[in-house]
């Protein structure tokens, strides 16, 4: 199980390098803010902490704050990226 997780981890890191290496510089900001939104995936851990009644009230408190923080990251990140990319499309000369 743990071996498999590491395997997945290493492959994902390489995939990440491959995906980003050739991005044109004009897309650096949206890319960064888009991947920033993905890092909000930690919402999964936050939901489990806030939603499962293990470990008492304090866990729920921590989980709830974590859900709020992760949601700011996720919702804000995706919306702001979309807002930027929408501008990239509004070209009088049309898309490339």
């Amino acid at each position: 199980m743990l071996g498999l997780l590491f395997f997945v981890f290493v492959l994902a890191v390489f995939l990440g390098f491959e995906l980003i290496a050739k991005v044109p510089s004009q897309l650096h900001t949206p890319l960064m803010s888009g991947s920033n939104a993905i890092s909000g995936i930690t919402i999964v851990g936050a939901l489990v902490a806030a939603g499962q009644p293990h470990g008492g009230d304090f866990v729920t408190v921590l989980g709830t704050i974590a859900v709020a923080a992760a949601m700011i990251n996720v919702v804000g990140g995706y919306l702001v990226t979309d807002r930027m990319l929408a501008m990239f499309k509004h070209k009088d000369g049309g898309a490339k």
Partner: protein
Amino acid sequence: MLEKLQPLINYIYIIASVLFVIGLKMMNRAVTARKGNLVSAVGMALAIIATCLLMGMEFRWILVGAVVGSAIGAVSSYAVKMTAMPEMVGIFNGFGGLASMLVSWAELVKWRSMGWEAYARTLDPGGNASAVFAAVAIAFTVVVGAVTFSGSMVAFLKLAEWIPGKPLLFKGQNIVNGLIVLTVVGGIIYFCLDPVSPAAYAVFMVLMVVGLALGITSVIPIGGADMPVVISLLNSYSGIAATTAGFIILNNGLIVAGSLVGASGIILTQIMCKAMNRSLANVLFSGFGAVTESSGTAVKGEVKALSAEDAFYVLEAASSVVFVPGYGMAVAQAQHVVRELGQLLEKNGAEVKYCIHPVAGRMPGHMNVLLAEANVPYEQLVEPGDVNPVIGTVDVAIVIGANDVVNPAAREDKTSPLWGMPIINVDEAKTCIVLKRSMRAGFAGVENPLFFKENTRMLFGDAKASISALVSEFKAE
């Protein structure tokens, strides 16, 4: 019903991961980027739904947190000005780090109150969880999450200019950082030996506090011009924190998504460092710009100012013009008038390009976003590598609030701190007009010999006002 769904949940995480990969891939090209972002958002929604389908979830507090967080995220993402984008990205990133930090804290509390046996079953019902492994993951997550959080907050404060953007150095800074790192390493080892002992909980708290301190002390000394590097690095950290959180709760979705972000952040960081010809270590530890008393040889020569009217005559006769924007354009909010001037120049028969240095501004691609906001077609946005070989044929290069990225000392003066940095060679254009508020040095605090060159003219004043004046000259034609 819910019980039957349990085996499906892992598959949903896999689908979500695939959507993240496809989404990022689509964000490689301008035409597909917006859809790519949507694809990745769908992946996130799936991951959230899958988690809500887990057995025994209660939604009261989840709803509270989700509503509050979504509202804050949505409102601020619509309210933010495009010029304030770097600090916005920074602060969102910080909240991701905060969430990871809190998740590791919550997991530790669960573990301590339930005992390992029961806690391990919540991680993996198959009974494959390892206590040592979980402890290491918890310790790493709290540190990386804390560094991401406080580091991003400091970056935010600097970018929003609530605290000075200048590098703040104090004596023995590197010693303090070294001590912090030692404490972290020792703390992690101690914690992992027996994570349920009362002392271990105290050590966990120390790790959190020290992590927060490390985020502050490592970003505080970094100057504004180096912010693109810091922002991409912090982005990478938040991905790493999500990955290690995934190792705590043994969740593939978290591990894949986090690693993608971590890797992409590191690549961006490298690109930024290359664009400044500096190593990452140099950016992080040198407090660049704070030691500028002796930066480079003193520059001799005369500064030649010109009026907006004179600048108009120069531009009217030009058949090729290159704009070189920098952070000053963002500060002056001048992107719209710049585009207007660009269009007037085109109408006048000139070929107009906008040359953007990779580290111009305060985050990677900052200038591209601003000019896109002003409806500059992205075909006109070019990179230094496209312009430099033909810069000799350019009639006028207009530098708007950029300084270090056009400083010829990077080419000419081996003693300059900028030596070796790839720059835009505007000094080799036939005429170079520099828009500048005053004769102050750039963020790096380095003298710029460009201002004293034979073919350089300075147009002093607020960039927006100066450009507007040029625009009205053209319109009065």
